[in-house]
């Protein structure tokens, strides 16, 4: 079962995005945020929203979308299950801030963000926009679950890391990532991180001691791809 805030760290092509898609596959109300506009563009069986005009907010206020591709139009009057990929092409942090506000109003929804470091970069607490902070630290009160991937932990603001109920560490060789992992797991696990095979991770959480998870090697089924455009 997906926790209120889960993170997936690891190098490219180690299986973190596939694992995140696997973990959220059973969520009935799912919003997937895609900043890369690459492989998720062809994801089949889900809705796609392409916000194309966004006005950033002034004075720290949230920005606003214009036109028919406004994500608010997608959620208006929508009851029950849904699964949508929202493709952001620019102004990632500002658009995620507005989306978090919108989803706090939608309620009972799971927000999965690929490449979270593009949206909430490292820095002090004030560098995270207010609605993203609300979603991270109190989203569970509104039924909002949050998960995201990043290549190295130092790309993600410490608010997300410190509030994460579960972090899955995939293969990484970067020194700062290994140093950050040392705060969450014994050194023996940290020493194994640079040589982890694909789809194998070290799971750390509040609920149990860290352990090496190989249970899904070769078993992860990624959502079916749509025909080529």
């Amino acid at each position, binding site marked *: 079962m997906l926790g209120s805030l889960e993170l997936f760290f690891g190098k490219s092509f180690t299986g973190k995005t596939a694992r995140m898609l696997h973990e959220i596959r059973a969520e009935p109300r799912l919003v997937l945020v895609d900043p890369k506009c690459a492989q998720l563009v062809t994801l089949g069986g889900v809705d796609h929203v392409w916000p194309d005009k966004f*006005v950033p907010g002034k004075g720290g206020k949230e*920005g606003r979308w*214009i036109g028919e591709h406004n994500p608010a139009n997608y*959620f208006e009057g929508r009851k029950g299950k849904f699964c949508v990929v929202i493709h952001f092409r620019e102004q990632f942090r500002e658009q995620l801030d*507005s989306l978090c*506000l919108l989803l706090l109003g939608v309620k009972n929804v799971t927000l999965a963000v690929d490449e979270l470091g593009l949206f909430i970069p490292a820095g*002090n607490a004030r560098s995270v926009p207010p609605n993203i902070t609300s979603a991270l630290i109190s989203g569970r*009160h509104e039924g909002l679950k949050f998960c995201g991937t990043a290549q190295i932990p130092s790309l993600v603001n410490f608010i997300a890391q410190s509030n994460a109920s579960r972090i899955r560490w995939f293969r990484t060789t970067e020194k700062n990532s290994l140093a950050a992992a040392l705060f969450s797991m014994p050194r023996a696990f940290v020493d194994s991180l640079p040589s982890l095979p694909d789809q194998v991770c070290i799971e750390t959480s509040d609920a149990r001691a860290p352990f090496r998870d190989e249970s899904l090697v070769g078993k992860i089924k990624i959502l079916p791809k749509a025909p080529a455009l």
Partner: protein
Amino acid sequence: MWFQKSEQSEPNKNPHPGGIDFETAAARVTLEDPEVADADTELDPADEFVAPDEEALLIKPGWAIAVAKGCFYPAARWVHPAYAIRDEQAEQIAPAMQVFLQTLADKYAPAAISRLANRHPEFWDLVAKLGVLYYQQWRAVSQLVAEEERARLANAKNVTPISVMPMPPEVVVHEEPERKVVGERMRDGSLVI
């Protein structure tokens, strides 16, 4: 009565009293008027969503006072010391100086540096090479100074320190030039012929 009033009041229909409802959230993230939208999209980037920068250089009032006093240093140094201004005088122009220095730090200096870096890369090559050369010279001179100091200490035992000021050399003063008379001898015994 107060309790009757509370019973008559409307019950809170919001199942999430501390949260935000969808209509409010959607209204806050939606811009309806396309004209306003067009106007907003043409805003100066400086007015857009900007997170506070913790690493920004903030000019302190004390720095402005120091710079204001520094403006009068050349005149006080080379013309007359009375040109130097007191702290009270510097504080009068410190606010304007602080605003100028802040603008300089935020706007002019980064623009000038980026212009130099973009248009004149050879300038930065020169700066880098000068820096390397200065460093090499500094190391060589430091070694030379250290060797001189070691040599001085080694020769210290052969040098007798001067404890008394030596007397000045005697100066022989001749009042009048000696008169030469043919057939007579001079003071030193030579004969004048």
